[in-house]
């Protein structure tokens, strides 16, 4: 599946995304911010509407038919998502609000419970704030030593440095599978193997990988993996924590209340089985069902084809952007190790001015630090511009971006 061929039938896919068929500032919308949040296809919207219209009642409660219907679909969604990431059983899938909440769940219910003062926790320089701040808070609160795997000049993780950073005190390693800024795809297996050799557990932040490429938790042998539904055609408000079952069972609950107990009397509660132990209160089950529909949609396209399409888009964007005088690409320039995220700067133009000028041309990109301020400090940059791709983007979108860049340069006399 190498090469730069465009594998997907984009015209057919775009027909499922009516939102893309609109004008912005009198220009056709060119949406290049899917790394922040993706658009949603009709089958996802329809799946959720159908529940609300015909099959809605609270799950795990009623003995009546409507509640059973909703519960069945919720369980089916969990099973679909388990299959999608190669999890051994649906019970390994905990629904959360998003990847951020999943990481916080792990910080509270795993790390605060199993890590002791002086233990070491390893993250990387390129993490999103979601995989940064919870550990900084934990480190401060519990005297845990937080260390950072550095990036090389090319923007990939330094595995040599990893060797020096791993010690017998390392209890937890958490890293992004794909960087939301540099686009760097990190091969998780070697890091996970080395971490396991020193007895550390490993969390993979798959927010930018599960939506875009085949991911198999059994093959990579991670202990935990997190991602958000809204970045992969699903609705907002639903995310996933995958965990090895024995670990999930050993962990105390995160939030407490209804649905997460098996029994409560005046002496106290008994916890429900996993994964419900971690799903206190009425869950976002309609959103979970929507995410299940998103997984169906992606599976029908085939994740290898999705990845190949994005790799081709990335290669094309890297090539076209490098033609523009003053553009500097941030991160790897080899599309084989770069997800569909192309971050860049334009000489003497602040990314916010650039994003405003591109918006005037209908081109939606992200500008700022993309919730990765430590990485920007490391890169010595205040802010960057980012174009990111998904299944509904086509080479013409990159052409529109480049054309708008030239217009922006002209407007700003750069």
């Amino acid at each position: 599946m190498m090469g730069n061929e465009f594998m997907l039938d984009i015209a057919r896919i775009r027909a499922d995304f009516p939102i893309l068929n609109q004008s912005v500032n009198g220009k056709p919308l060119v949406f290049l911010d899917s790394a922040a949040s993706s658009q949603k296809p009709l089958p996802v919207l329809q799946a959720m509407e159908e529940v609300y219209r015909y099959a809605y009642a609270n799950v795990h409660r009623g003995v009546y038919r409507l509640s059973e219907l909703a519960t069945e679909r919720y369980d089916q969604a969990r099973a679909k998502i388990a299959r999608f990431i190669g999890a051994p059983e649906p019970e390994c899938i905990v629904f959360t609000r998003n990847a951020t909440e999943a990481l916080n769940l792990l910080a509270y219910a795993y790390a605060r419970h199993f890590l002791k003062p002086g233990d070491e926790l390893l993250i990387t320089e390129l993490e999103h704030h979601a995989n940064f701040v919870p550990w900084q808070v934990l480190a401060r609160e519990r005297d845990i030593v937080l260390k950072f795997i550095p990036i090389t000049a090319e923007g990939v993780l330094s595995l040599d440095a990893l060797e020096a950073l791993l010690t017998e005190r390392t209890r937890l390693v958490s890293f992004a599978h794909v960087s939301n800024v540099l686009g760097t795809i990190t091969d998780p297996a070697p890091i996970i193997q080395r971490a396991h050799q020193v007895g550390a557990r490993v969390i993979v932040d798959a927010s930018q990988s599960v939506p875009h490429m085949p991911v198999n938790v059994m093959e990579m042998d991670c202990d935990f993996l997190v991602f958000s539904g809204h970045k992969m055609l699903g609705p907002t408000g639903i995310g996933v924590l995958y965990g090895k079952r024995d670990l999930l069972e050993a962990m105390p609950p995160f939030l407490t209340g209804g649905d997460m107990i098996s029994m409560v009397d005046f002496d106290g509660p008994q916890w429900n089985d996993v994964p419900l132990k971690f799903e206190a209160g009425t869950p976002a089950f309609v959103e979970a069902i929507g995410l299940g529909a998103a997984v169906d949609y992606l599976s029908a396209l085939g994740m290898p084809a999705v990845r190949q399409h994005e790799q081709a888009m990335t290669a094309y964007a890297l090539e076209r952007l490098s033609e523009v005088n003053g553009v500097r690409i941030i991160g790897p320039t080899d599309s084989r190790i770069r997800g569909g995220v192309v971050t860049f700067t334009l000489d003497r133009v602040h990314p916010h001015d650039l994003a405003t000028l591109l918006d005037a041309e209908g081109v939606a990109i992200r500008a700022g630090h993309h919730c990765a301020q430590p990485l920007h400090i490391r890169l010595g940059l205040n802010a960057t511009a980012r174009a990111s791709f998904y299944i509904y983007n086509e080479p013409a979108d990159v052409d529109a971006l480049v054309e708008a860049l030239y217009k922006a340069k002209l407007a700003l006399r750069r």
Partner: protein
Amino acid sequence: MQDLYREHILDHYENPRYHGTLAQPDFTHEESNPLCGDRIRIDVKLCHKDGRDVIANAAFTGEGCIISQAATSMLLEDVVNKPVDEVEQTDPQHVLDLLGVPLSAARVKCALLGLKVLKTGIKRWKLSRQ
């Protein structure tokens, strides 16, 4: 699309007025916009005129987008020689009027960073005198 980046705004960006630092300012304040990393520092020198504290001179340095830097340049041009009490009451809309271009909500924050720095600086200076 040139609307937002009209000649006078680009001019203030490229040739900012009151740019730099002051040797002995009465107060200095600096803030940044955490979302976009825009940063502005303003030095202010005061004098006494007709029994009021008046901004005798001001200077700013910073980095950030055209809107944040141009708006600060226009603001300082506007406030020098004005009484501190009056400047402290500046309506944010006044800065937007100085820019004279329509701004989206996200960009209003850029335009008002300089005013925020100046107002906070004045507040702190007043507190320090009490």
